[in-house]
Structure formats: C-alpha cells, structure tokens
C-alpha cells in the first residue's frame, strides 16, 4: 500500500468516527504520523483522483466521496445477483428508483425462497440511495398470522379507534401508520381478507386510509408497500393485486437456481452458525453433496433450518461426547436429517454441475477463512442448541411483543393459540417419519430415551391407542428441552391450559401421571403448563399427516424362496431410510392360493389411495396384480423380474410421492445394470476396483477337453503351458468327459468363475463367444499362434479396462469396453473388414471418449466436408448407425453424423 492509499484508509477510518463531517489535514497528519504539509499534498491528490472532496472554510476540510460505483450495494451482493436473481435485482432497483417516489412491489415466489430477505434488501437499497431516510421504519407483517381472525388482523394493520369493538379501549396506531416514511412488508398478502384488500388498495391509490371503527377521519401515510405471496402467477387473486401493484418481481425456487448458488447459500449459513457457536464447523464431502442435491421443497428457508439442525446435532454430539477425540464440530451423514441424507441418491441428475463444485474439495470441507473462530473455543456455551428447539422461546417472545402492543390476556391467548397450533404442527410435522430409536439417544441421551419409552408404554395402556416413532421422537426432543428448562428455573407457559384440560381430560390425567414419573426420575417439579404440553403429545392426532402421505404408492415385494423378498426389501428400506416397501416370502411349499390371499390383504392394507406396485420375480406371481385389482378395486400394477436395484428405484420414487405410472416408467427405464453403476460411482477408487474386480475381472481360462480315457487333454495342457508363457491371471483347465453334452454343462459352470477364451481338444463343439481349436491343429503348431494372439488381445483389453478406471465421469470402464468390443466386431462384420487388433483398440478408445463427451454435453467435433462425405458413404453410414444404435439406447444419447463419419473413416481406411 502506498502512502496515498494509506492516507485514504486513515481518512475512511476517521470519517466513520466523526459522522463524516469532514477532516482537517492536521488530524490526518497526526494519525498517519507525517507532516501536515505532506498530508495535505496526499489529500489534494486524492481530491484530484475524485476520491475525496474539499469543504470550503477555515481550516479546509476533506470529505470522502461515496460514489455509487465503488460502493457496492448490499442488494448486489445477494447470492445469485449475477445469475438467477439478476433480473429480480434489476427490477427491485427500478421499483425503488422509479420517479417520483418509487413503485409498490409485489414479490412472488414459493415458501422459503427469501421474499422477506429480499424485501429487507430493497429497503436497504432505498436507504442507500437516499430514497428513504436512514432510520426510516421497516415494518414487517405476516397476513397469515391472524388470518383466522380478520378483525384482529385489520386492527393490526390499519389501527383501531377506541370503542371500535369490545376490548378496544383506546386508540391504537396500525402498522401502516407506524411505517410512515418507510416501508411496509406484507408477507402472505393473499391471506388478507377481501375487506382488508379493499382498504389496502384504497391506500395504494390515494395514499390515505381509515382506522377501524373510524368513519370520518382519514390518515395519511407515506409508505412503500412491498407485498409478498406464494400464489402462483396467473391465479385469480393475484390478478387483482397485479392490477393495483404494477411491479411484480418473481423470485425463483431453489430448484431453479444453480448448484453454485446453492453452495454459496450453504456456505453462508454454515458461516452464520460458526459465528453463533464461536467455532469452526467442518463438513464431510458426502454431507455437502446431500445438502446440494436433496429435494428441498421449502427452498432456502428449509435449507437454512436443515443446516441449522445439522449444526445443532453436530454441536450436541460434540458437547455430549466431551472427550478429547472429538475436538471439532463436524457434519457428516450422521448429523443430517433423513430427507437431506436422501439427497445423495439424486446424484446422477446433476453430476456435471456437482463435480464442478466439489472436485477441488477435500474430504472434510472448511468454509471458514477466519482462523480466529477456532482459537476461541472457550466462548460461552452457544445458544445455537436452543435455537432449533426454540419452542418455548418463540412463545415467550411473542407474549412480550403482544403485551407491549397493549393487547390484553384474552387477545394474546387467542393469537398464541393460532401460533402454537401452527408451531406444534411444524414442530413434529417436519420430523422424519421413521427416526431410528438408536439414533435419538445420540441427541437426547439415553436417560430420556428410556423415559420416553416408559411414557408411551404407560400412555398406550391408559389411553388404549398406539403412537408411532415420529411422535416418539418429537416427545424425546421436547422433553430434553423442557427438563433442562425446568431445572434452570425458567418459566413454562401454556396459553390454552384450561382448554386442553377440558377438551382432553383423559390425556391430561395421563400426562399428570407421566409428570410424576419425570419428577421422580429427574427430581424436579413439573409445572402444570408443561403437563398441558405433554397432554398435547398424547392426543389422538398430535399432528396431521401430510397430504402426500395419503397418496404414496405402496410397494409390495413377492418372491419365491424362503427369505428372498424379505431380505431384498430390508436392504432397500435401509438404503432409503424408510420402511416403505413390504415383503411376502413365498416358499416353494406354499400354495399359490395362500400366497394370493396374503398378497390381496397386503395390497388393501398398503393402499393409501395411490395404488400399489407389486414387484415379483417370475411365474404365476405376475398375474396377481390384475386379479387383485379386479377383486378389490385397488389400483395395482405388477413388475416382473424385479431385483434389488429396481425395488430400490421404485421405493425411492414412491417415498418421494411419485404416481404409480411414473414409478413404473422409471423402473423400466432403468437398465438393471446401469442403476447398479450409479452406486458404484459414488464409491472411492479402492472400493470401486474391488467390486469391479469381483464382478468383471474373472480369470482368463483356456479349457482343454477330451473324452475320458483318451488322455489328450492332459497332454494338451502340458504343451500349452510350455508354449504360452502364461501369467498368474491365466488358468488352464483340463476336463475329461463322458459325452459331448457334459462339455456344455461344464463350460457353463466354469463361465461363472472364469472368462473362458477357448476350448482346445478332441471334442468338437460350438458355443457362442468361445473359440474352438482342434487338438490336431495345436499339435501341428498351426493353432498355437492364433491362440497366442487371442490371449494377448484379451489380456490387452483387461489391462486397458484397468487403465481406464477413473478416466471417465459417466462411463464404467469395464462395461463400455465390453460393449464397444461387441459393437466393433459387428461393424467389422458388416463392413467386411478385418482390422488389426491394435487399431481396433485405438478405435475403441476413440469411441469411448466420444460417448463420454456426448454424455458430458460436450461439443461435437466437426468432420471436414461432412456433407460430401455423407453423400458418398450413405450406405455404410446407415449400416454404422444401425449398429451404434444399441449404444445410443443404452446411454440415452444421440451420436451425431460428424462422429459417425469419424468412426466410419477409421474403419474404412485402416
């Protein structure tokens, strides 16, 4: 930094502390520790550079010019300002700057896309641009909060005149008046009752409004309205708004934004949490992948809270296992909520984009470049743990806010009633449905887990109903928090205690019993209000099942054999993390009638309105679906030849709420193998090699065979051993057989363990893919060379497959090599060419990379004079196209004519 820059820096610093009233050269000289004349020289240079201005007077003062250009606006720093939010940001600026006073604005976007955040940025921008005074009010109001009580809502918004209704015993200003000179953000504006809409429009058109209960006096206010709604564009309601509010800004859903942006969001949320915890939070790469890919229905808001939840779990793990081993906060799969974890299964859809983001990341990712965070371990126990279990805090906060606003006890209770029910639903509604019990104890501790178990045993007994794992988890979390609270002597308040007592008296009595259990175990005294909450957990429907649940397609796996169905289903359910698929085993002894009866009952049981998909292996089972549908009316489809991958795919889709037809489509779409491949891709190199080795890398073998007794096979083996200089990966196998049919059987057996290249012997035979050499040809030496070449070539391909591992992002090297070998030999056949194996190899590599390139969405290569070439070689290109079509189908790609020309040229000219 040169001196001039230093002076500028100092001026900035000083300007901050003197409210930017201008600085004298003397002050600056003193701070910079240079002479006054030097200082004023630099300051004059800065004035010339346009960075500062002089204020006339004695002494002359210098002031920093805050130009629009070098001062980047906050709104320009919003993540995505350069890409998916570019237009929205432009619109927002236009809305603020539009002469003379700016435009009222309507923000559209799904829940959680950041409408409130965006509104706040618009406000900041207005202040930065001096459209609003600094310190101008920014008032936020969610119309859904009081949607059940229009009177109250309107009162909040427009104010209430004394005596307007019972309980309004003094004038109260509405939020609109409070926002005078500033901005009013109306969230979920579609929940505004018609009457309120009318009043709002009047205000928008005329700039004044009336208090509730006041008919003559109009109140004026200068307020910029930013309204937000989740209504989709074009809805009836929206049209009314759009007529009155000219500027409509749409904010894209998270799924429409780039992964890069999503990454930045994750980064910023983690950084926020780091600040709260006062410690660095690290994330494993796989967890990051999950966060990047999971279906985040409620957008950024949900992403944020899921990250907070993960951080909280990480924090709890860190705190509870306070041994030295865990010295860092880490987020791995274990810390992720289930629905986030499932994200990793969406892997293939966005592979390219994902790779761009994570390719340079280490396995454990640090988001922080601030080292200080980590040094500061001894900071106060961060509040973050509470933050996500803030059930009580929210309520308490609201009470005090409402009290400040002069509402009386009854009103507060009424408002909180709405809030609490909403919150309560959210509180458990968000939880994963099947939380594994073993995992809860990591979060809440064993003591509470066993207590909760006891509680439900008691409750099930007393109330004669059963509770699922979701509620179990909910109560465990709740108790963890409330017991701590009671111990700390913090207040617990339930606004609807009396109602609960009367409406749910049975539950209340049981809850009292439970309370005494808690008291005994933790030696404390559970207050009555807490018993109110406990009662709510015990009610028949403590939360509403999401509507989706009602329609999820059932998956029923039926297979022959004692445990095939059960074990496959178990694997699938474990992978999905949800016990969705169900199984019926059908031992061979079971008669079909019985199996059918079982299947029918299960189908009826599984049907939630979305139908049931039966996945079977073979035979009579395939007709079950139709019969069951006829008999029961439940929509039932059957998929045969089911395997673990197809069941996995079906369950995954079903859990996501896809419809029956869509599920069938995607299961059929998925080649059995290609799905398997997707899983292998996510394994590390070492693991991958192992699996591939097991699956593909069979030892090469040549079989020598003769009829029992003629001894030729052994002699052949000796000879070949000498001639072929075989390496360790190669086996020579001797078969002595009784008759010709045995040979086929034996070869078939061997093929499961070996890749049988050739059979040499005295028994002439014909099996696809296996060459036969007669013993006579071998003994005379004619065939030895051919056999050698065959082996060389095979070994070369094996080596090539190995050297290609991890060269491809989209292709499985073993698979593509085999596929292309087949394709190439077919092309040679059609074109009547016999191409040298070395050149074949080159062509194969070329084709593999070409396919990879197409899959990666890379550009086509342009073939010189393609039109002319195509015309000349029309027939051969057609032939080629026909053969390559298999590859196109397998990989769902289209191979361009330029590429075909390249390939054909290589075959023709070699």
């Amino acid at each position, binding site marked *: 930094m040169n001196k001039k820059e230093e002076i500028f820096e100092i001026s900035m610093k000083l300007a901050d502390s003197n409210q930017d009233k201008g600085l004298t050269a003397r002050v600056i000289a003193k701070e910079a520790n240079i002479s006054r004349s030097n200082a004023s020289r630099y300051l004059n240079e800065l004035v010339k550079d346009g960075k500062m201005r002089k204020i006339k007077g004695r002494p002359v003062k210098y002031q920093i010019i805050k130009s629009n250009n070098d001062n980047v606006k906050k709104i320009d720093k919003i993540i995505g300002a350069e890409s998916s939010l570019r237009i929205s940001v432009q619109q927002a600026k236009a809305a603020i700057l539009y002469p003379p006073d700016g435009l009222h604005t309507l923000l559209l976007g799904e829940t959680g896309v950041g409408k409130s955040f965006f509104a706040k940025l618009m406000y900041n921008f207005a202040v930065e641009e001096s459209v609003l005074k600094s310190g101008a009010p920014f008032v936020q109001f969610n119309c859904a909060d009081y949607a059940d009580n229009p009177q109250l809502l309107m009162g909040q918004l427009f104010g209430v005149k004394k005596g307007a209704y019972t309980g309004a015993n003094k004038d109260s200003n509405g939020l609109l008046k409070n926002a005078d000179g500033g901005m009013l953000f109306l969230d979920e504006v579609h929940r505004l009752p018609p009457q309120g809409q009318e009043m709002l429009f009047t205000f928008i058109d005329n700039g004044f409004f009336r208090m509730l209960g006041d008919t003559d006096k109009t109140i004026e206010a200068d307020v910029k309205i930013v309204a937000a709604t989740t209504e989709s564009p074009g809805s009836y309601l929206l049209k009314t708004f759009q007529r009155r509010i000219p500027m409509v800004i749409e904010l894209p859903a998270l799924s429409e934004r780039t992964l890069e942006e999503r990454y930045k969001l994750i980064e910023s949320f983690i950084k926020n949490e780091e600040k709260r915890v006062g410690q660095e939070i690290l994330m494993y790469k796989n967890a990051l992948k999950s966060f990047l890919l999971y279906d985040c229905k409620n957008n950024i808001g949900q992403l944020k809270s899921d990250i907070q939840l993960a951080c909280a779990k990480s924090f709890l793990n860190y705190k509870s296992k306070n041994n030295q081993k865990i010295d860092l906060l880490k987020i791995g799969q274990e810390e992720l909520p289930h629905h986030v974890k499932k994200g990793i299964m969406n892997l293939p859809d966005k592979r390219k984009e994902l790779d761009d983001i994570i390719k340079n990341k280490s396995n454990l990712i640090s988001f922080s470049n601030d080292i200080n965070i980590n040094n500061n371990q001894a900071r106060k126990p961060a509040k973050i743990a509470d933050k996500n279990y803030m059930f009580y805090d929210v309520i308490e906060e609201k009470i005090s806010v409402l009290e400040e606003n002069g509402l009386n006890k009854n009103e507060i209770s009424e408002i909180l009633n709405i809030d609490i029910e909403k919150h309560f639903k959210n509180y458990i509604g968000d939880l994963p449905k099947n939380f594994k019990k073993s995992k809860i104890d990591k979060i809440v501790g064993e003591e509470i887990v066993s207590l909760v178990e006891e509680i439900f045993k008691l409750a099930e007994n007393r109330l004669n109903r059963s509770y699922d794992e979701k509620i179990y988890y909910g109560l465990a979390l709740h108790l963890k928090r409330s017991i701590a609270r009671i111990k700390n002597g913090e207040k617990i308040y339930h606004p609807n205690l009396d109602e609960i007592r009367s409406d749910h008296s049975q539950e209340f009595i049981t809850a009292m019993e439970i309370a005494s259990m808690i008291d005994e175990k933790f030696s404390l005294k559970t207050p009555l209000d807490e018993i109110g909450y406990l009662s709510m957990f015990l009610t028949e429907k403590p939360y509403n099942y999401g509507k989706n649940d009602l329609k999820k397609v059932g998956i029923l796996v039926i297979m022959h054999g004692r445990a095939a169905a059960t074990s496959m289903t178990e694997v699938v359910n474990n992978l999905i993390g949800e016990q969705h698929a169900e199984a019926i085993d059908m031992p061979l002894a079971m008669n079909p009638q019985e199996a059918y009866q079982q299947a029918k009952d299960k189908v009826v049981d599984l049907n939630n309105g979305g139908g049931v998909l039966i996945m079977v292996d073979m035979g009579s089972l395939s007709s079950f679906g139709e019969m069951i549908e006829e008999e029961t009316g439940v929509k039932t489809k059957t998929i045969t030849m089911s395997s673990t991958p197809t069941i996995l795919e079906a369950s995954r889709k079903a859990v996501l709420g896809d419809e029956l037809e869509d599920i069938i489509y995607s299961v059929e779409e998925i080649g059995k193998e290609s799905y398997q491949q997707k899983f292998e891709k996510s394994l590390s190199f070492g693991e991958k090699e192992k699996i591939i080795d097991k699956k593909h890398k069979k030892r090469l073998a040549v079989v020598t065979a003769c009829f029992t007794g003629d001894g030729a096979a052994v002699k052949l083996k000796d000879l070949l051993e000498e001639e072929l200089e075989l390496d360790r990966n190669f086996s020579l196998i001797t078969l002595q057989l009784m008759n010709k049919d045995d040979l086929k059987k034996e070869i078939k057996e061997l093929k499961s363990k070996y890749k049988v290249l050739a059979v040499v012997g005295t028994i002439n035979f014909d099996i696809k893919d296996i060459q036969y050499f007669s013993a006579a040809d071998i003994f005379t030496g004619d065939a030895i060379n051919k056999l050698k070449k065959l082996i060389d070539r095979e070994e*070369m391909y094996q080596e090539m497959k190995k*050297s*290609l591992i991890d060269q491809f992002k989209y292709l499985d090297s073993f698979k593509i090599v085999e596929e292309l070998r087949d394709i190439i030999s077919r092309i040679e056949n059609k074109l009547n060419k016999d191409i040298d194996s070395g050149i074949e*190899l*080159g062509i194969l*590599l070329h084709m593999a990379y070409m396919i990879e390139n197409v899959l990666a969405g890379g550009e086509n*290569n342009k073939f*010189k004079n393609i039109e002319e070439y195509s015309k000349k070689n029309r027939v051969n290109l057609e032939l080629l196209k026909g053969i390559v079509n298999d590859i196109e189908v397998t990989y769902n790609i289209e191979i361009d004519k330029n590429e075909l020309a390249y390939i054909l040229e*290589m075959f023709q000219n070699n």
Partner: protein
Amino acid sequence: MNILLVCAAGMSTSLVVNKMKKALTEEEKNWTIEAQPVDSLEEVIDDYDVILLGPQIKYKADEINKIGDEYNTPVGVVDSKDYGMGKGRNILNQAIKLKENY
C-alpha cells in the same frame, strides 16, 4: 520437450496424455504433452518437437509424415499395446527415441 498426440478428433488421446504426464520424471516435469485433432495439425505443429499418432489413424501416417518433413518434426505411430493400456512411460520413451534418431 513438447510432444503432440494426434488422433481422429482429439478424443482418445486424452487418456494417453494423462498417463504420459503421470509418467514424467522429475527432470521432465516441464515437458508439454498435448492432444489435438488431426485436422488442426498444421496450425500447431510448430510448437512441438515430436508428433505421435493414435493407432486408429495409422492410415494417415503417410500424409502426416509429409507435414512432419516440411516442419522438420519427427512423426510416429504409438505402439498400439502401449496406447490401449495407457503405458505412459513406454510412449514417452518412444517419443524420446523418435527425437533422438531424427
């Protein structure tokens, strides 16, 4: 030394380029190894000391030899076994020999 690998559309050689780069010794670390499609050879040949062809375009060897002669640059076809198996070191040795014997 700057080595250029040439194949039909600059595709398959990327494997070979990778494997060759991995096989470079400490002293050779500053070598340039690149892949280009055969059609653009004349535009870039000046930048390289050795030209290697993928075996699948062996048929173009004569044509490319001529270009190599014009620019005083040795040309060779990569041994197909080394090529297919990605034997980077062998191919490097081949390039060195080509250059030395030119």
